[in-house]
């Protein structure tokens, strides 16, 4: 049953995507603007990218952000995957309601509350604010997003595969690493990428959890945006978009390949 795709449907989808993409496209275009006035076109130029790379403050912040992002996304992926396994595989354990509450609540919790509460925790235990505290904070809020992504994959997972492996004598841990993990790997990869971009992106929680010496790129951009819009910021934003876009496209190509490989394997198996 294929319902008709009416003209109204097409128009609303096209307009919707125009609304979603136009601001980003304009931002990218104006990063190549010769003029210092961000909104007046003065000819093509890449000079703002040059001045960006000479801006030591921005470069330092970018380096901090990248390190925080990679470390926190990696740890969050492990914890988030564990949380997703706990939620899907163990349907009954003491405190499960609280646990699932703690996994889902950070998804919608206003960032100012998460940021403030983490900061007060760090102060209460006497942890100096800096690189470590930002990373801890990012692990905490991004692991919940990883958990949701991986959980969605685990729910559609065919458990008879695991049962078959165990019937054939594979111990549970081996079954997990050789059967379960390869199947949910795409979800884990996209979970990592989501965690990484969320960390790259975060202003509010980082502002609370960070201290001197650990200024992240969003914090730097924010403080400059408050002073006014400059083409240099446009250039910084464009580079951030480029990094993420390359990552997303690469991940989807890898996923497609795997999918293709899997289908071929299945066909080969069926032909026997």
């Amino acid at each position, binding site marked *: 049953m294929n319902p008709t795709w009416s003209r109204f449907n097409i128009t609303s989808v096209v307009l919707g995507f125009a609304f979603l993409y136009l601001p*980003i496209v304009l931002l990218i275009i104006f990063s190549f603007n010769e003029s210092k006035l961000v*909104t007046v076109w003065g000819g093509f130029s890449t000079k703002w990218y040059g001045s960006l790379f000479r801006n030591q403050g921005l470069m330092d912040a970018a380096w901090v952000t990248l390190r925080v992002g990679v470390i926190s996304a990696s740890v969050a992926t492990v914890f988030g995957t564990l949380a997703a396994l706990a939620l899907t595989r163990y349907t009954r354990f003491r405190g499960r309601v609280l646990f699932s509450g703690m996994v889902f609540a950070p998804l919608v919790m206003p960032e100012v509350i998460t940021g403030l*509460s983490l900061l007060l925790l760090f102060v209460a235990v006497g942890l100096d604010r800096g690189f470590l505290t930002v990373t801890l904070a990012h692990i905490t809020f991004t692991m919940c997003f990883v958990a949701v992504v991986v959980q969605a994959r685990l729910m559609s997972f065919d458990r008879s595969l695991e049962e078959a492996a165990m019937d054939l004598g594979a111990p549970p841990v081996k079954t997990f690493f050789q059967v379960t993990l390869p199947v949910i790997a795409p979800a884990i990869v996209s979970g990592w990428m989501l965690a990484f*971009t969320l960390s790259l992106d975060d202003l509010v929680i980082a502002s*609370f959890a960070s201290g001197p010496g650990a200024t992240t790129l969003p914090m730097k*951009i924010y403080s400059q*945006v408050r002073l006014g819009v400059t083409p240099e910021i446009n250039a910084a934003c464009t580079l951030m*978009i480029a990094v993420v876009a390359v990552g997303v496209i690469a991940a989807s190509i890898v996923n497609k390949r795997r999918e293709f490989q899997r289908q071929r394997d299945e066909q080969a198996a069926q032909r026997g």
Partner: protein
Amino acid sequence: MTDAALSVSAAPDARSSLPVRALRAVASRLVIIVPYAWLLVFFLIPFVIVFKISLSQTAIAMPPYTPVLGFGEGIGGFWSQLKELSFENYLWLTDDPLYFNAYLSSVWIAGISTILALAVGYPIAYGMARAPTALRPTLLMLVILPFWTSFLIRVYAWIGILKPEGLLNQLLLSTGIIHQPLVILNTHTAIFIGIVYSYLPFMILPLYSSLEKMDYSLIEAAQDLGCPPTSAFWKITFPLSLPGVIAGCMLVFIPAVGEFVIPDLLGGSQTLMIGRTLWNEFFANRDWPVSSAVAVILLLLLIVPIMIFQSAQARAQEQSK
């Protein structure tokens, strides 16, 4: 917590020796314990601390509040401290109309934005769900992609568009639609645009997933029986998409109430939103107890919507099993 974990791991390898089994039992319990402990320490306990500090008093020190409710002086000291707890910060919040107005206008702004996002997102999600099956994964990807670009950047992009000499005004002036530049930046309209734009994917995704699952033959049956398309929509499509509507609205409304970046960058100095008030209390006034009290009340305000969201999530989980 332990019973289920034990039985799951112990069943398949009853032949293994006792130490191996015990080790595996611990390992499978770790799956639960590690993330559980992490979230307890970094998510739940911090809220308890926020509540505790909201009851303390501001002091010129580092950290800038008087310590309360410590066990440093034993149980007796704990009790005497309990008597000294001050609800002054909360009284302060109710005394000053600034805070009340900030809460009210946050809920108001978030509510209007949520309705606008629903109105904008529904036709898009509906159009996507009706699209040819081969096209749907691409469309879905296109909705998710902007989510991968920085929130701050997307809000920042709108400053260039909305400001008085910005791109929107240039376009409208040059086409002769208007003769005076529109003042949009630093008004509520700019905040509405910012929230709808930033949170639109959160609205579209749950809507799309409930609309896509819908059985289209229901609509055809209604039409065969003489039901006009509009009432078929309101009587069949919309009620069936209600879980998606609820999830989408909660995903937009809850974070929007406490939103800081959008009102700060697009709303101008006179916009009152509670996320921004909290930020200013903390960073500008360095009043940690009052900002904690602001956070506690904000959390209380959001508990009902968060519970609705949680139960919707739980139901969706049950359904997909």
